[in-house]
Structures are given as C-alpha cells and as structure tokens.
C-alpha cells in the first residue's frame, strides 16, 4: 500500500466518523483559510526576493559586510592618527628640551657644532 492510499483511507475514516457541530466546522474552515492565505503570502514574498536574487544577495552582503569592514578600518585610522599626533607632540617637546639645554648650558654653541671636539673627547677619554 502506497503512502497516498494509506493517507486517503485515514482521511475517509476520520471524515466518516467525525461529526462536528456546524459552528466548530465553520471556525475550523476559517482557521484553515487564514493559515493557507498566510502561507501563500510568505511564499509569494520569498519568490519575489529570489526573483532578484543577485540584487538581494548583494544588498544583504552590502548591509552586513560594509559596517563589519568599516569599523576596524575606522578604528585603525583613528588609532594611527592618534599615535602620529602623540609622536609629533613628543618630538616637539624633546626638541624644545634639548634646545633649552643647549642655549642655557655652559658649553658654547661652537662646541656642539664642531665635530672635531667630539672626536677629540673620544680620543682623550681612551
């Protein structure tokens, strides 16, 4: 016995022995109609989406991937800019500190500009 025949037999058996009040039968019919309509609407929507599947796929990927890609890139750019700014500030502070020391120190500027002095100091400290 095939599955279809078996199903039909069960259906007939149930229908024959089932005696429902008209009120209940109407409610069941209404519920069935609503359920069928709801299913049909969902199916139509799915078909419409799959009809333009390339666009839908692109749109979905676009919506999901772009922020996921952009966030780390933005974080990276902001991070790099912050590091660069801090480095610039640090370098400027270091230069100001050294220049102040050179300008205020006991050694004249010539001592820092004369490469021979440095070489002589190295030689005499050996």
């Amino acid at each position: 016995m095939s599955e279809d025949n078996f199903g039909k037999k069960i259906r007939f058996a149930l229908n024959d022995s089932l005696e429902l009040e008209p009120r209940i039968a109407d409610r069941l019919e209404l519920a069935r109609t609503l359920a069928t309509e709801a299913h049909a609407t969902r199916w139509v929507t799915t078909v419409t989406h799959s009809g333009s599947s390339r666009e839908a796929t692109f749109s979905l990927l676009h919506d999901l991937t772009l922020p996921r890609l952009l966030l780390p890139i933005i974080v990276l750019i902001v991070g790099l800019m912050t590091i660069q700014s801090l480095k610039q500030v640090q370098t400027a502070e270091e230069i100001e500190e050294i220049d102040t020391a050179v300008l205020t120190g006991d050694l004249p500027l010539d001592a820092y500009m004369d490469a021979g002095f440095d070489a002589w100091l190295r030689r005499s400290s050996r």
Partner: protein
Amino acid sequence: MAKTLITLVIIALGFISADQSIAAAPKKQQSWLELSIEERQILAPLESHWAEMTTSRRNKWVGIARKYKTLRPTEQENVKARMAEWAALTPTDRQSARNRFKDLEKMPPDKKVRLTDKWVEYQQLTESEREELRANARNSRAVQKQSLSPTAPY
C-alpha cells in the same frame, strides 16, 4: 543597518576631529605681534627670523620664552646671547648639534662636569690639529653611514 553605519561614521568623524583639534591646539601659528609683550622682549633677537619660521619652531621658542623666568641669571644671559646664532643655523646644523648634545649627555657625570675645561683645552690645539680631528670625524661618519646603508655589501 544603514543607521548603524551612519552612527559609526559620525563617531569616527568625531574621534578624528577631536584628534586633530588636540594636535592642532599647540600648532596655532602666532605672529610676532600676537606674542605677549614679555615674550617679545625675551625673544627680541629672533624678531627678524620670526616671519620665516615654521609653526613648530615658533611654538618651541614660545615654550622657551615661558621657561625663561625660571632660569638662573647666567642661563638667561646665555639664552639671550645664543638665540639669534642658533636660529640662524640651518636645520641640518641644528640637528647635528642636538645629536652631539645627546651624545655628550651619555658621558659619565664626572667627565660631563669637566666639559667646559675640555673645550678650553681643545681650543688650545692648533688649527691644523683641529682640522685633522674634524676630517677624522667626517670620515668615520661616512664609514658609519655606508655600513648602515641597505645597499652596502655584507
């Protein structure tokens, strides 16, 4: 999703503008007349150089002028006497001088305190002796540069 994206972009732009404003704050270019009277008095030897200075150099000098009050009288005299000469150097010369300063700073403290005496001693060498030392320094620097160069044979 689009709203999330817009929010992210706004947050990022906020960070970037805040970051730039932090970096831009000390970078404000001050003209000579925008300096305070006290700063102009201290930096008077630089007046003729001021217009051609970059923003970072101007900021550096303003920083030095602000420290000036805290310096000892001899240090203040040194700054005044050396300021114009220092400003007139080329950027390369100034950088070389800074590098030498950093090298000298690494010397042991007992030798560092005698640097002025050493400079006097060095001045007593003949010009040819000093020139020979300078030539040696130039050569050793050239050798150093060559060995650091990525194209140098290993």
